């Protein structure tokens, strides 16, 4: 393939996305406070964050599946030339499952318990591509073999309850990829699986996405999972991205004080148990109440490196050498 000197149009471009949850009266409680990033074709971005940081809300917003009460208050989401936030529901529905697919935490909830799993996957090809059922069935059998089912015929006829958690999640992957989407959004798909099965699932997902050239947005609280599948990593705290960069750079040398503190909680890699009598590093305090966010940097109250200016206003993501962006006054504040 010829090298194209112009940067390709990203598959997904999110800018200043703000989302809140309303309780009827008064302004909505902010959950996403201005999130922006781009995703190139075929690229895998891992979003690392803890409970309540807004990572699941980010996924739901991109898919147009915010629950009642959820409201986008600002920002844009461009996906393959569409303005997703302005798209009528009928057109969004035609994109979802075809160009934009999702994998959730609990595979049991994504599958219809009354339908054979093969037919559920074939339905997508019939609906989105207008294929005849016979053609759809044979394509699904091929795909079931690619997600490593030894006996695709038998799997095709199985009902979800007859499968193990790992098998169900592979069915969900097949369902997500059957229409060869441009982007898959995955919210902790390995959370309900054991560590070995989860690792195998992540490796399988990664290799299928590479073959198809599909981009991935994968959110998780577990750096070990993200380390094995992301090209780039974004660290999220209190509804904002605080650091974005290449996976190896962020894991080896996190710059933002929160990213540093969070990754320090993770035990060292490799089978070494010698340092185990020292207390593990933790992060003192807790995340701010979304209903009463601090005026400055959200991590300022817990930060060891805080300065007086940190409490004034939240720092923007500023560009750093390499492909790194950090939202912290320690690293300069010019807009990247």
């Amino acid at each position, binding site marked *: 393939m010829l090298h194209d000197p112009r940067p390709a149009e990203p598959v997904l471009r999110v800018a200043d996305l703000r989302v809140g949850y309303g309780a009827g009266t008064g302004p909505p409680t902010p959950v996403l406070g201005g999130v922006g990033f781009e995703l190139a074709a075929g690229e895998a971005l891992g979003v690392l964050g803890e*409970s*309540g940081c807004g990572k699941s809300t980010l996924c739901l917003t991109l898919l147009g599946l915010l629950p009642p009460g959820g409201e986008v208050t600002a920002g844009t989401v461009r996906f393959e030339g569409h303005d997703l936030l302005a798209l009528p529901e009928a057109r969004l529905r035609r994109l979802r499952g075809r160009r934009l697919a999702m994998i959730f935490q609990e595979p049991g909830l994504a599958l219809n318990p009354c339908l054979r799993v093969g037919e559920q996957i074939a339905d997508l090809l019939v609906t989105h591509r207008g294929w005849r059922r016979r053609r759809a069935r044979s394509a699904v059998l091929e795909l079931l073999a690619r997600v490593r089912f030894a006996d695709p015929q038998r799997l095709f006829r199985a009902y979800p*309850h007859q499968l193990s958690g790992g098998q169900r999640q592979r069915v969900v992957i097949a369902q997500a990829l059957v229409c060869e989407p441009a982007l898959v959004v995955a919210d902790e798909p390995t959370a309900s699986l054991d*560590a070995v099965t989860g*690792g195998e699932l992540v490796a399988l997902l990664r290799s299928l996405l590479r073959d198809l050239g599909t981009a991935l947005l994968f959110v998780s609280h577990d750096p*070990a999972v993200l*380390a094995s599948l992301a090209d780039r990593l974004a660290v999220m705290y209190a509804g904002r991205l605080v650091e974005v960069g290449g996976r190896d750079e962020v894991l080896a040398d996190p710059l933002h004080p929160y990213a540093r503190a969070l990754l320090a909680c993770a*035990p060292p890699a490799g089978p070494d148990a010698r340092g*185990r009598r020292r207390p*593990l590093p933790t992060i003192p305090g807790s995340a701010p109440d979304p209903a009463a966010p601090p005026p400055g940097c959200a991590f300022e109250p817990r930060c060891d490196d805080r300065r007086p200016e940190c409490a004034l206003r939240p720092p923007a993501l500023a560009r750093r050498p390499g492909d790194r962006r950090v939202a912290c006054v320690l690293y300069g504040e010019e807009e990247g």
Partner: protein
Amino acid sequence: MGAGAAAAAIAEGRHLLTARGLTKTYARGRFGGGGGDRLPAIRDVDLDIESGGSLVLVGRSGAGKSTLGRCLALLERPEAGSIRYRGVELTRLARRELATYRRQIQLIFQDPGRSLNPRFTVGEVLEEPLAIAGLRPGAERRARAAEMAANVGIPESWLGRSPLGLSGGQRQRLAIARALTIRPRLMIFDESLTGLDLSIQAQTVNLLRELQGRFGLTFVFVTHDLSMVRHLANVVAVMEMGEIVERGPAAEVFDAPRHPMTRRLLAAAARG
């Protein structure tokens, strides 16, 4: 006394609990296609739990580790084998006699949220085990509940609140405090760190180490994920298909795993 019995007696001195030949099977479900036969969950398992130590039972889903944990916690009766706890054979005790030992052996579940009564306040959750143990309501019971709350870092101001408002890590600490109110010797944690945020897992590891030292507790951790639990382990037993396939001191097993399953579990817990 035969050589085997003598060895067992010596083992019992160091060990709080020794299990021999534990076997437990489950009936195959109607849709499993088995038709009446039984599926072994654990098969002929021997286990020694050292007093004051931390044993990690690790394996994939379905390896039998939770069943073994439930047998040790006296929630399941094994079909064969013996469980000796401080010299007493527990498998032959009647239900009523078991009650004393159930107090000394506490099981903590993965999602304590589901085991907390939403109609209780945090204080009532902590007082309930004391009430079951026969302590009448009053200042002493309240004081003991408040003391345990303080031990796990639950502020006194929460005692009047509902447990529904607590985060996952806070609920886990409440479950630990509740188990501690009746002064157990052995605590069995079934995936208690799994699914918690990283910083909360690290806090919980530190808290458990501190409590173990302070109260002389013996721990058993049942898990599929070694990444954090390995910071607590001093003995590891690896399970596969209902059997223990490798066991030894944690440092040895982690540094030089012999069984392929041990290697896979360690690889899954490593970063990158």
